[in-house]
């Protein structure tokens, strides 16, 4: 076990690389879910309140 932890003298490099990777992956999951939750909440709050004022967009074909 100790031998495994020491990583043949590369412990600092190997563990920090895996640690940072883990951190970035978890942070990305958190950010993606937070982003999703933010706009779901906004959609719930705003609902169709502005829909009547929104003009349909027509693109002119030239």
């Amino acid at each position, binding site marked *: 076990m100790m031998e495994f932890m020491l990583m043949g003298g590369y412990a600092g490099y190997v563990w920090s690389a895996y640690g940072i990777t883990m951190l970035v992956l978890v942070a990305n999951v958190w950010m993606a879910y937070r982003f999703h939750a933010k706009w*779901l909440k906004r959609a719930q709050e705003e609902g169709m309140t502005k829909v009547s004022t929104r003009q349909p967009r027509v693109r002119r074909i030239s």
Partner: protein
Amino acid sequence: MAFIRHNLVRIVNTISVLNTNFWRWFHQLASPPHVFALAGRVCPWFAGLAIIFLVAGTYGGLVLAPADYLQGDGFRIIYVHVPSAYLGMLAYMVMASSAAIGFIWRMKMAHGLAVSAAPLGAWFTVLALVTGGIWGKPMWGTYWQWADARLMSELMLLFLFLGYMVLRASFDDRDKADRISAILAVVGVINIPIIHYSVEWWSTLHQGPTIAKLDEPSITMDMLIPLLIMIIGFTAFFGWLLCKRLQGEILKRERQTRWVDGLIKGRTA
């Protein structure tokens, strides 16, 4: 003669049916409710696949794979470095190709997908640079080398992702942001082959390709298998978060429409 004509008609009919199906499918991809539902359906599958493969690949890379004869246990960084570098490039290709589709066919959902891929790609590129630096220190004696072709082209990839996001943020009009940022994304594709061939075209500290080359991979099976498992795991992870972000992006764009309103009411009811 009649036999040939009969079969010819059958072939043409089959093609036209396939063609109609293809275009129906293509148009469904332009429909926000359809894409939203599709992303919601595939998301948990990607999530499950990602977790299983990432755990298995990490175990394989740290425990099962033998130590390298030259780099000892230090080479194990490959199992996080290569998948993140590959994923940064995959994310770029997803971003650029969907931005191009959005630009050509004026498909808002394709732009939405491009927007969703950008932050993920940026993060994986950062990860590739950081893990590469950590790997470089014991093997090359330095974390970073300016004027190294591989390192510079990878840094360029990060700047392309950041540039795409900053450019988008500078427009108030979303349609305009979609179109202008798509041009940047497509032009930046030129950097992808540069990253790949940088280790062959220029002298660099970075080692040559290990897997993606015409020759046999220069790595033994017991080292290669965990790497492939990690690559699948990272890809599934990207698919998972891409779906989640795409759903968020659709809600952001469509939040004042009838179908989103119906969706929320149906959810809370």
